[in-house]
């Protein structure tokens, strides 16, 4: 039964917690692993997965179903009907159900289906009020496209990442850039020495990040296509995502260039 000292205990606990947190924060590298070494340290090697087939490569006919993408309201899974190398129909075979989700799904999925057919890629806008469903939809759509291309690619049986052929369109995926909110990874389609398409295959997720990502990434994609290089402006309110985007974009362009 030692004497208790509540005030002393409170002061000690506060001091220990604050100094522990400050220590942890100060031990983290002060941003941006701008050097390749730092990025390579945390990120998995990506080169292996980069030659994935480009937009110019025909995609096989028939239907293809993407992987189910989990969102916090449920799974989203997209099925594409492809004919003559074009997406002729997109539909969601799985979408969030129950409660509020029924409404959100019924209002957003038809629009996403249309957008997918119109864009012929996974680079479609997020439907407002359905951020998570849109995110999942895009993910599953991308996976369906990848599968369709892989099927077509194996039919053709050729390495499209032959390197250097700037006249031919090719798709290159940059290294993963770590930001404090999560990894960012950019895939660009380069044709005739120009960026014809830029998209983010990995972006920060969770909490506030979903909003920031949904808002910033489409703008960054556009900016990359417009600029033709990695010299793009940061989107305000998404400083980290922008920085990661630029870094991954630069790495993709480096790979495409040589």
């Amino acid at each position: 039964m030692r004497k208790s000292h509540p005030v002393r205990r409170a002061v000690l606990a506060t001091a220990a917690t604050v100094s522990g947190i400050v220590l942890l924060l100060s031990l983290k590298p002060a941003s941006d692993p701008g050097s390749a070494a730092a990025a390579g340290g945390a990120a998995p090697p990506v080169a292996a997965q980069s030659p994935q087939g480009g937009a110019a490569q025909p995609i096989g006919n028939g239907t293809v179903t993407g992987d189910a993408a989990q969102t916090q309201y449920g799974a989203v899974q997209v099925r594409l009907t492809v004919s003559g190398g074009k997406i002729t129909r997109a539909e969601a075979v799985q979408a969030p159900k129950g409660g509020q989700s029924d409404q959100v799904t019924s209002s957003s999925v038809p629009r996403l289906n249309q957008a997918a057919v119109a864009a012929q890629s996974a680079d479609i806008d997020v439907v407002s009020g359905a951020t998570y469903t849109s995110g999942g939809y895009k993910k599953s759509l991308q996976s369906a496209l990848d599968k369709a291309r892989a099927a077509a690619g194996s039919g053709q049986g050729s390495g499209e990442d032959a390197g250097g052929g700037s006249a031919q369109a090719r798709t290159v995926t940059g290294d993963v850039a770590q930001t404090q909110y999560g990894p960012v990874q950019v895939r660009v389609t380069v044709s005739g020495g120009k960026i014809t398409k830029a998209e983010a295959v990995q972006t920060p997720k969770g909490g506030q990040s979903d909003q920031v990502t949904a808002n910033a990434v489409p703008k960054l994609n556009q900016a990359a296509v417009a600029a033709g290089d990695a010299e793009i402006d940061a989107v305000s309110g998404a400083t980290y995502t922008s920085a990661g985007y630029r870094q991954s974009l630069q790495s993709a362009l480096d790979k495409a260039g040589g």
Partner: protein
Amino acid sequence: MTTTLAGGRAARRQTMRRIRPRRSPAVPLLLAVAAGAVAVLWLWWTNTPSIADTTGKIIAAGRITGLLAGYLMALVVLQMARVPALERRVGSDRVARWHAMSGRYTVSLVIAHVFLIMWGYARQAGKSLGDIVQQTITSINTLPDMGKAAIGTGLLFVIAFISIGPIRRRLPYDGWYHVHLLTYAAVFLTFWHQITTGNEFAVQPAAKTFWYGLYGVVTALVLWYRIITPVRLNMRHRMRVEAVIEETPGIVSVLIGGRKLHRMGAEAGQFFRWRFKAPGMRFSSHPYSLSAAPRPDMLRITVKAIGDHTSRLRELTPGTKVWAEGPYGALTAQRRSRGKVLLVAGGVGITPMRALFETLPGASGDITLLYRANSTQDLALWGELAKIADERGARLMYAVNSPDGERPDISAESLQRKIPDVDRHDVFMCGPPGFAQSVYEALRGAGVPARRIHHESFEM
């Protein structure tokens, strides 16, 4: 087959083996808790490759405090799950103090978490600290499960507020207790935003599984030990009031009958939380120690009338149904490490001491009971204590105020004078806090090591 040796080393060894103390699992448990906290921090560490600037640091600090708060929240609930290992081995009193301490710490972390995250998000949106309230409202409206979390956090703050010492003392215990039960709702409501908005859980499925596991285990333990176990206990034993006996002015004993009461596993020195199904007493449960070793057909508690509840006890009529939860408490013979034992009782603190005085194994002269009261009239149960002392050859001493109201001298010197080998005893103590503190200091002064002073205190 061994033959029994009379006297000598073998017999002594036999005695020592019987009374080898069971170690309290407090230290390994605290180490496990610390290891869990390290794992939680490690989760943050691996998910955060770098921190760019001040905003990043603020949000990172918010995440760390949030993760720790979420982790500790589960443990704060666990501490009140009435897990036998905690209640009977660590001791209900100590666990209750842990609960209060970690509860205060957790609420502090929650406050820091809310403030830091909202400040960080405000800065991220290009706003300043002054817009933190606006940012909080925006986040509650836009982020998933944040509405629930906001209600839960509000509840938590109310509960924390009424648990502040001076405020709590002004509230009736029952009212305070029932509001405090809302903690379960608060924990449930705040759980979901951790999973859906927590960065660490969004990117790491393993972390999410771990979190569900932690909260799942705690929920299961609460359901099992706070609901199912008491229901089974009371279905089996069907306790009723047999008689109420006035021991001294203001102190009553309640005799409780039931079926196979020895099968409840209660030991001398332990207590139950009692609920009497009589008007005005139905909804509150109170801890009272057994004042005699449990018998197959009878339990006895002895209570001093100091509050509402205790005063009503004397009006209990035979046949009143009794709901009991327990046994709890670690002040039992298992704590003993020596052959010689000194029991110290202050006032109605005699109850567990009386049970131990009767049942602690020991030869003639091994057991001593020191009983402090205001006057000889206040020495409740004195008759039966004297009888036990006679039968067992145990020593029984009392200390009361002198006729002019002077307090008896209980100091290191007086203890050594009365019990020359006091430093070779295990001491069990029960009494009001001031009394316990002064006796503790006297005992330490007389050379009794702290680890051999066993004491139960429900002071927070």
